[in-house]
């Protein structure tokens, strides 16, 4: 049985905002199936009492003082923007609503 179906790959592509072609979907489905089948090995490890590590090292409480630092100028901020209007980033019309 395959670990992942083509439909699931299409769903992942949608969640990841990747407009994939049909050919790509098929190709990635085959490859992801192999990869997921292989990495699924981790699920077999008996690790019930093992705490997960989200970080390489156990640092805690790294903060900065509430001090204002120099911002970029609008020119710097917008220098790489694909489109600009009125010192704002111009973007295509937004379909969805804010989450």
């Amino acid at each position, binding site marked *: 049985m395959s670990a992942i179906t083509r439909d699931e790959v299409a769903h*992942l592509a949608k969640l990841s905002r990747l407009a994939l072609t049909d050919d790509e979907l098929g190709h990635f489905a085959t490859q992801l199936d192999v990869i997921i089948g292989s990495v699924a090995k981790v699920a077999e490890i008996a690790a019930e009492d093992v705490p997960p590590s989200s970080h390489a090292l156990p640092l805690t409480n790294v903060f900065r003082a509430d001090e204002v630092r120099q911002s970029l100028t609008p020119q710097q901020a917008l220098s790489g923007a*694909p489109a600009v209007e009125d010192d704002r980033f111009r973007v295509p019309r937004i379909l969805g609503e804010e989450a």
Partner: protein
Amino acid sequence: MSLIHKTAAELGALVASGEVSAVEVATAHLDRIEATEPKLHAFLHVDREVTLSQAREVDSRIASGEQLGPLAGVPIAHKDIFATRDMPTTAASKILEGWRPPYDATVTARLRAAGLVILGKTNLDEFAMGSSTENSAYGVTRNPWDLSRIPGGSSGGSSAAVSGYQAPLSTGTDTGGSIRQPAAVTGIVGMKPTYGGSSRYGLIAFASSLDTPGPFARNVHDAALLHEAFSGYDPMDSTSIDAPVPSVVAAAQAGDISGMRVGIVREFAGDGYQPGVIARFNDAVKMLESLGAEIVEVSCPSFDTALPAYYLIAPSECSSNLARFDAMRYGLRVGDDGTHSAEEVMALTRAAGFGPEVKRRIMLGTYALSSGYYDAYYGQAQKVRTLIARDFEAAFGQVDVLISPTTPTTAFPIGERADDPMAMYLADLCTIPSNLAGNAAISIPCGLADEDNLPVGLQIMAPVLGDDRCYRVGAVLEKAFEARWGGPLLKEAPAL
């Protein structure tokens, strides 16, 4: 001997004494780059004028009596994943083509402060995802030992530049082996410092909990000099360690390892290891013994699951880290013709701007983090991470350092694994555990494999903040090997 054949330490001394100028040193290397780039393609961006103006500035700083470090005036090749104000920064991706950051990465700023002269930005696997540099959107880099082979990856441009005498030093980043593996397959030294020992600020993130900047050089001492120049605490990086950098330069000059306990990881052997790699590794073990080290075999059973854990954790983080490349604020924008919504433009741009490996990893990470799969994949991988750290902890309770081959094979031919992700991932088998646990590890050359005459790397792993041990053992071994070989392994890049 020409300037390009000198070590970084020698060049720094020459510039400091005024015998040669930083401009002369930079010019010699720029000429070498111009001559060899058609063969190597190590660089994505070189701008002679920008480099020479940096060199002129260093010369004037020295002339005005400013006390710069031992690397002032030494040229360096900089991985194109670090933000640079005066050069484009692309991470070898189409999605960032031509992007010029309005800021310097901390590593970049520290290179400049130490008077290093940036020769250009080196090629890499797109967003540092790969082990061969074939995943660059701007063409593959070739191995100076054999132009038909890969220079390793992801920092393949940086390894090729140093191995090909285009630069005495270069920077890299190591997420799963991206410094050590390219160093190994090009016959040079590459160091992954302790995670948090070198700043990630301004380093385009692949996997935040694993990414670690580190140095490449042709010898251990030069690597230590560069390591000291750019590492250390950075308040801009929350995961940076607020502790003094271990004195790695002093360690590289210590010259004695007698009485040190060296562990061999039992799990790093067996199928998939090239015989010539195993033979050179065994030579290194004997050499260490003859130098007075005590060899101990240790077991790290969880290392067997390091690779699958890594290929869940790294893609998970990358799926989120790369979400910012959305065509809204910078970089490529595709499909903005009035007929497409922002959502569609994002998806079209990302489809056009990312290469296949990046897309694979984004989708793999999205999958591993999805509700319903999180516990079995990402959550479980994090537990494996804990187990690996515990294995290291137990091992370092017995020994001072651990050794292994850096990578199971020598440089493989370009194209061989290009569309076989699982085969490609195996290149990181031995290097990944140290990324997951965050400890220090170095790769130094330990000879040529008999079957293909290509370089083999020895990995030396040390505990968290034990970076100095890597340099201490590495330097002593290097000296012994050079005595046996009659000089450095890399006397001259064979294919150039």
